[in-house]
């Protein structure tokens, strides 16, 4: 069966990137992730039903469980033991590994809990909530589309497959980038958009140049055209990158 982006699925097809680490190989379960809004009840005497207005949302990823691995730099314990704020991209593959156009959850989240469970296999239990003070501009939207899966080492310029949003949007966007492997080469990492899937302009250019593992969130204002894709231009080297876009 051809790989698809729509339909029912199972968590085994999820992929999780925290900062510059691909935790998919260590992940066992994730409880819940998304946004929960504060509410203010505004019901009056003559209201037929309870009436609410919503306040700010809380973004969170909770009930996450990973197998312990203390490999330097890329192990689950190595990455998660330091309490900090993480750039998070959780890709939702449908019946198979994620592909370009798959849905994803993207947010900047502060680590709230980190508890090791040694009652059986050594596990890490983690809850993330956010954002922290370093990401004051984080926006409400957290649901985006995968542009590059972070599963393949790229050794040549990559013009990604396009993602059709159905129409342009006007509220800007945020790009999420996770460079999980780098051999020290030089790249220019961009997200492009197009009104017709043929003529493309650079929507945003990440500051990261592929010379080291890194994670970055880059915001852009204004119109985002109907189609989006990545353009990773290679000068030298090889990189493995996960990238997603969230339209505001």
């Amino acid at each position: 069966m051809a790989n698809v982006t729509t339909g029912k699925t199972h968590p085994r097809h999820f992929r999780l990137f925290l900062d510059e680490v691909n935790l998919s190989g260590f992940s066992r379960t994730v409880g819940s992730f998304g946004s929960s809004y504060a509410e203010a009840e505004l019901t009056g005497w003559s209201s037929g039903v309870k009436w609410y207005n919503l306040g700010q949302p809380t973004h969170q990823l909770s009930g996450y469980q990973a197998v312990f691995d203390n490999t330097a730099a890329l192990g689950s314990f190595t990455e998660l033991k330091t309490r900090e704020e993480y750039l998070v991209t959780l890709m939702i593959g449908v019946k198979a590994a994620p592909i370009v156009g798959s849905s994803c959850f993207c947010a900047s989240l502060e680590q709230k809990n980190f508890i090791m469970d040694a009652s059986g296999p050594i596990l890490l239990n983690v809850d993330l909530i956010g954002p922290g003070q370093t990401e004051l501009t984080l926006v409400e939207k957290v649901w985006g589309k995968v542009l590059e899966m972070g599963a393949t080492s790229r050794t040549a310029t990559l013009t990604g497959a396009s993602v059709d949003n159905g129409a342009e949007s006007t509220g800007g966007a945020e790009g999420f980038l996770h460079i999980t492997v780098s051999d020290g080469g030089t790249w220019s990492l961009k997200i492009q958009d197009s009104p017709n899937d043929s003529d493309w302009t650079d929507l945003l250019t990440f500051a990261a140049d592929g010379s080291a593992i890194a994670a970055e969130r880059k915001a852009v204002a204004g119109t985002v055209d109907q189609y989006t894709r990545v353009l990773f231009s290679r000068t030298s080297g090889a990189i493995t990158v996960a990238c997603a876009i969230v339209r505001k």
Partner: protein
Amino acid sequence: MMANDTKYKMLVGANNDKKGTRFEAGAIVTHKDFSKSTLEHWVNTGRAEIVEEGEKNGKRNNGENAS
């Protein structure tokens, strides 16, 4: 609709997949590089600006500006 020989300056980099061409920010392009509708969309969305308005219209125009 702008004239055929109107010149636009790209404010961001751009690719034309059909022609396999790439223009960096600052490049001067015309409707020979991209369609008029695309260029006008880019002007409207801040990706390009008109640097020289042309005078020549295409055959399908009414000749109002024809020399």
